[in-house]
């Protein structure tokens, strides 16, 4: 083999070079096939390994959680068990209303603001706006707990707590709004950028104003993708514990007030898991199943929406 190489340092005939390459290829072929099979098997194994814990989570949540899915559990509020009635833990209606209230209001505030912000980012290119875009994108990656510091320091301490409202649903709403806005803005701006340039250029060439192009061309085209981004952000916000846990307190009664304390599904899981009562701990599975179902439904709905509305395109 090495003699070949020495020879090949000189000027060589093409047929010799070809014969050399082909002989070498044949010699190495067996080893290459073996390595290839080994590597591909490794990939399949990693896929199987990945599914073991994920399967275990789904199996446990459903296995331990499904018998909590009763009308009684869903419709009665949580109850603090006393020492003699450890199993008297009530249900989750307080957490369901709390979740709907806080996430719903936060979404109502966040959606228009995010769309406006995404339009502002889309339309302009100044240095300040570049900084704002960078901030938005970095916020998406920052730990969500940081938002609750901001809300606690800038809203709760100076305003709410000063008037006696220490834990309020309102603080949670503000926190989740601030959490959702970067997520939604990034998604909505991506949707706007996804609109073919020719569309807006055609409208601009006809003399349309930028605001009209935005309202009549860009927004309608980008709408399905924006909706997906909004739903995905919502599904993430619904599961968040850290940004609201220390702001909203707990409420054992079902109520719809923004000024009172509230419990949401994730914070109820937190408190249950934090207690020593085995019944409360076990009920975590049931609440987790409800929460996971809600998140999945939001997620799947957004997929169906986008699949439906994009079917007509291309």
């Amino acid at each position, binding site marked *: 083999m090495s003699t070949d*190489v020495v020879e*090949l340092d000189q000027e060589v005939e*093409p047929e010799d*070079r*070809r014969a050399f*390459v*082909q002989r070498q290829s044949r010699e190495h*072929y067996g080893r*290459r*096939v073996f390595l290839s099979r080994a590597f591909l098997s490794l990939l399949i194994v990693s896929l199987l390994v990945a599914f073991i814990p994920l399967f275990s989570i789904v199996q446990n949540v459903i296995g331990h959680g499904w018998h909590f899915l009763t009308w009684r559990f869903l419709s009665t509020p949580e109850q603090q068990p006393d020492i003699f009635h450890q199993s008297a833990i009530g249900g989750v209606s307080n957490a369901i209303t709390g979740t709907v209230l806080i996430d719903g209001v936060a979404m109502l505030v966040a959606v228009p603001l995010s769309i406006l912000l995404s339009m502002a980012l889309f339309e302009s290119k100044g240095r300040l706006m570049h900084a704002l875009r960078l901030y938005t994108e970095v916020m998406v990656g920052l730990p969500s707990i940081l938002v609750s510091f901001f809300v606690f320091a800038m809203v709760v301490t100076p305003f709410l707590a000063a008037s006696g409202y220490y834990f309020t649903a309102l603080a949670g709403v503000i926190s989740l709004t601030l959490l959702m806005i970067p997520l939604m803005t990034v998604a909505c701006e991506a949707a706007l950028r996804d609109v073919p340039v020719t569309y807006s250029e055609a409208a601009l060439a006809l003399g349309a104003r930028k605001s009209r192009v935005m309202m009549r061309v860009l927004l309608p085209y980008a709408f399905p993708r924006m909706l997906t981004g909004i739903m995905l952000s919502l599904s993430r916000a619904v599961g968040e514990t850290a940004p609201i846990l220390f702001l909203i307190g707990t409420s054992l009664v079902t109520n719809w007030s923004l000024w009172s304390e509230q419990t949401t599904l994730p914070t109820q899981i937190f408190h249950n898991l934090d207690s020593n009562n085995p019944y409360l701990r076990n009920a975590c599975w049931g609440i987790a199943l409800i929460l996971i179902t809600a998140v999945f439904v939001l997620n799947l709905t957004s997929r169906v929406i986008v699949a439906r509305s994009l079917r007509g395109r291309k």
Partner: protein
Amino acid sequence: MMDMSSVTNEMTEPFAPPTISIGSLVDQIPSNAPAETVLSLRDVAVTFNSKVAVRDVSFDVAKNRVTSMIGPSGSGKTTLLRAMNRLHDLTKGAVVSGTLELDGEDIYRGSIPTTLLRSRIGMVFQRPNPFPTMSIYDNVASGLRFNGIKKKAFLDDAVEHALTSAALWESVKGRMKAAAGTLSGGEQQRLCIARALAVEPEILLMDEPTSSLDPVSTQHIEDLMSTLKEIVTIVIVTHNMQQAARVSDDCAFLLMGEDRAGELIEFASTEKIFTNPSDKRTLDYIQGRFG
């Protein structure tokens, strides 16, 4: 070999003298030797999920010649080309029937493993596709390295040889470590040709290699083909009839039949196809009546 030298002189005469540094090789290997079949197609058909894309194609690709495949879009030229190095193996539901023989060995049912076959039958694609993360040198050396050849002395020599053959050596020899993406489109396509040549294929398949290039780069590649065929047999698919007329020695004309499956209408020397085709449909096509 002795008796062929007279043929050589006679046959090379009508062609432009070779321009680049393959040098002495050109004198030794006739550019238009009597047909020695290197790849033969017999009743080749390609179906996708039982829909026939191209059927009943039989012709022989002659060694050290350029064979072009022309025809309107949908006539199955590219499909047929991709069948020649088993790229359809990647597509689910694709079936290639009939026989394709490389040097007398069936490439689908014979003993040649697919990966080895593909280094004997190289391919250049419509758009230049150099490996973006590799340097110019690594791109060209990649095929040899895939095949287990690691000796640096050989690789250096082979890279220089392949780049020289692709008429790119002079312009890149000072920047072998540069990323492939820094080359222009035409240079990238020649880099891809060099990458394919480095593994010393017997046949080089070219799938509309100039369709994404500017006229000057196209000219470069066309010039290149006339010298490349001294070292490798070329099969080229082109949508450009003038290009087929300029670069090829033999020509296959394909056309979409009534059932939307491509068929071979005529296979002959390029000269015959473009001056005196035996089928009326060929005549119509080359005269621009359709397609």
